[in-house]
């Protein structure tokens, strides 16, 4: 008989444990690095690639497998995913080698070049899975977006899709319905209307903001990809020249099956267009570099789990009452101008698949001097006693709110996301352009989620705009009225609105104090004599978001 124990409350660390590696945006594992002179065992990745692969995917009883770790030691899986994200891949591990002599017009990713680490493009602020530089591709360049809150975006896109398709399924032949969904906050997202014309046919001419299949694709500026798993397997190939075979994607995309990934994402290959893995089996050397199976499935599992749980952006209204008033006034001006009709502030997930959430807010007292932020991790998964060693800790049976019909089981309110998960026409200033400035076919873009906007300049899908004010003024089309409302504001009010947007920020996890380790035990300037230089900074003593303390065996570092 299974017993379920709710993991409630905040997981606070009794002791601040040193966290292995993590100070650099991109890291090599120490077992490679120790061969170099001056190598320091305290930084870098503790486990080499074969150790990270561990027991492969296995199952929940295969010690060291990805399924075992995800289900029984989830913080370790998240951490391993992070280390993989930061890892600098080497030629011997399959990095690059991809033949880039093809036609850039038919394979735009050729223009992106190659990078040896995920963090090479997604590494700002320091050490985070954040935003990055301009990625040179076709038809136009792209600014690498930040990945904060990625799991929440995947879930929101998925749940909106389910609601839209439920509306479609409810139609009788000849019947028309408005495709409107409520995701909390009182706002309604309107995707137009749909008419059933036959048993399996529909008139989708009036569907707007989403493909005719009603599948919301939250990833990429134009709304191109459904899931984190497709996103990461595709990026490893296109940006790093690392081809991974993934049975889940293969089953969904090629075999048209419905597959549930280890992170709980359902890939409905029977009804959705899922992206196939770059190679059809583990023996295929996709780029002819002499290496096959460059990204074993276990690593995909950990990285997917990591990105599912990646932090939400923070809010930093400051501690000065005047500044807080400006931020709040700016928020009201933002809503009053109509910006909030597309950039919807808060959305609700009915069934959160994560096992934990990290809330990061401005905290003048407990935050580090670098950003004065403090992150509070809260576990809301469940422990299922299946007499394993250790027991399963899983999101699958999270009973939070189970007794409340007011809020569906495992609901989670995603605050300050500012998006509607819909494509819009923002006028010619936002249309895709070729490098010679001709307008490209892509004219619709997903509403950019504004969380983190205060620290992720430049702006626009193409990074063409240097400031928040300018990117607001760049809006046209469906955003014209809101843009004009902003333009008509007094200078003081424009400033307040921009101050508000600047309070929506990203952060470096190594530089952010948390309840998980090193709660700034040395205040920056306790006696007015100058800040204390902390030994072991930043991984010990000064505060960081350190998942190590949540491992089943914290001494076994990743």
């Amino acid at each position, binding site marked *: 008989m299974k017993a379920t124990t709710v993991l409630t409350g905040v997981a606070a660390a009794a002791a601040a444990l040193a966290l292995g590696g993590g100070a650099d945006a991109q890291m090599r594992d120490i077992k490679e690095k120790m061969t170099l002179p001056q190598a320091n065992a305290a930084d870098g990745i503790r486990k080499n690639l074969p150790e990270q692969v561990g027991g492969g995917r296995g199952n929940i009883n295969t010690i060291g497998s990805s399924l075992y770790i995800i289900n029984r030691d989830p913080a370790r899986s998240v951490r391993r995913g992070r280390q993989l994200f930061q890892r600098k891949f080497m030629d011997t591990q399959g990095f690059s080698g991809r033949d880039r002599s093809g036609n850039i017009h038919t394979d735009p990713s050729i223009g992106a070049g190659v990078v040896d680490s995920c963090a090479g493009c997604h590494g700002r602020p320091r050490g985070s899975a954040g935003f990055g530089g301009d990625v040179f591709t076709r038809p136009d360049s792209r600014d690498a977006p930040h990945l904060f809150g990625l799991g929440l975006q995947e879930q929101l896109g998925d749940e909106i899709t389910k609601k839209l398709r439920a509306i479609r399924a409810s139609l009788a032949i000849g019947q028309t319905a408005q495709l409107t969904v409520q995701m909390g906050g009182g706002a309604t997202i309107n995707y137009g209307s749909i008419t059933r014309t036959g048993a399996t046919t529909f008139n989708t001419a009036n569907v707007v903001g989403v493909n005719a299949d009603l599948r919301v694709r939250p990833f990429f500026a134009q709304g191109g990809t459904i899931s984190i798993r497709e996103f990461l397997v595709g990026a490893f190939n296109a940006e790093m020249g690392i081809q991974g075979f993934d049975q889940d994607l293969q089953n969904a995309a090629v075999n048209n099956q419905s597959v549930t990934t280890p992170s709980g994402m359902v890939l409905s290959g029977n009804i959705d267009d899922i992206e196939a893995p770059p190679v059809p089996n583990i023996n295929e050397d996709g780029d002819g570099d002499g290496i096959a199976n460059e990204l074993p499935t276990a690593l995909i599992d950990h990285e997917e789990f990591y990105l599912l749980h990646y932090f939400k952006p923070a809010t930093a209204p400051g501690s000065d009452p005047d500044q807080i008033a400006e931020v709040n006034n700016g928020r009201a001006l933002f809503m009053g101008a109509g910006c909030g009709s597309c950039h919807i502030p808060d959305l609700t997930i009915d069934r959160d698949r994560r096992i934990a959430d990290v809330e990061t807010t401005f905290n003048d007292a407990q935050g580090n001097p670098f950003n004065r932020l403090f992150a509070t991790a809260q576990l809301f998964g469940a422990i299922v006693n299946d007499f394993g060693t250790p027991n399963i800790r899983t999101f699958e049976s999270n009973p939070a709110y189970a007794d409340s019909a007011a809020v569906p089981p495992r609901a989670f309110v995603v605050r*300050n996301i500012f998006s509607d998960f819909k494509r819009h026409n923002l006028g010619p200033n936002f249309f895709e352009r070729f490098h010679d400035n001709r307008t490209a076919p892509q004219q619709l873009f997903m509403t950019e989620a504004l969380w983190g906007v205060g620290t992720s300049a430049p702006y626009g899908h193409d990074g063409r705009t240097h400031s928040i004010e300018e990117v607001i003024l760049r809006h046209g089309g469906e955003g014209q009225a809101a843009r004009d409302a902003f333009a008509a504001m007094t200078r003081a009010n424009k400033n307040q609105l921009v101050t508000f947007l600047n309070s929506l920020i990203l952060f470096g996890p190594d530089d952010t104090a948390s309840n998980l380790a090193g709660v700034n035990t040395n205040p920056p300037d306790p006696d007015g004599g100058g800040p204390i230089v902390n030994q072991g900074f930043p991984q010990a003593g000064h505060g960081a978001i350190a998942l190590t303390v949540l491992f089943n065996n914290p001494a076994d570092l990743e």
Partner: protein
Amino acid sequence: MTTGPHGRRKRLLWLAIPILGAGILYGVLASRGPSNDGARSKAVPVAARAAKADATRMSEATRLSARRGDTEAIVGAYAAWAGDPSSVAPRKLLLATLLSEEDIAKKLSSLLAAIEADPTPPEQDPLWEHLVQSLAKLWKGDTATGGMDLVVAERRPRARRALISSFATLAASPALLELNGAQRQTLTETMIDLAWHVPASQRPEVTEALRKLGGNDLADIYAGRGVTGKDGHVLESEVAYKGALAETQAKIAEGSNPAQ
């Protein structure tokens, strides 16, 4: 604090006592009929019938209250008796029973279900103010944080309106200061975000809540005043901004350091 099953039963018993007591007291008083017997008329039988009906409902409410776990029946009766002015007291007793639930999730679930099930427009609901005040009293500590999520997540219009009103009530009360700084900021943000989606009749209380939470400018911006500078209204922040600008310009003009 006792948390075991015996302790729980004990607390339930203590909670049942005032509920049963109130019901019995009302039943006794109602059965006695009108106390003013100076002008008995033909209307008396009608009044007596009404009183009898009241007593019947109170009796039923008392019976339901004794079965606290059957929230579905309580919610059903609460909704079924809505719109009948003579049922206010029995319905209030039912609400008290729902409010006496210790588990906050269950309590909110049943309360909001009852609120939603009542078709009476809030402006005509004799229990609306009582409901809102009762909800507002719940918003303390972690429950306040959860409640602020609930107000965003709730999609049923009447329940949602009650939740917003309860937080507007909290914002205007001294209890606001019992929230910590982060909670007050979250409440301010929540109220701003929801303000543009409330029905017109709820705007006044939301306006006042914004004024309490964020000052006059916030309420004025919500009313559309002082945004463009062309309506004759000047926000306090506009005055401060222009004052600071003029002061800096004056200091520069006189050659002194504007930072001092």
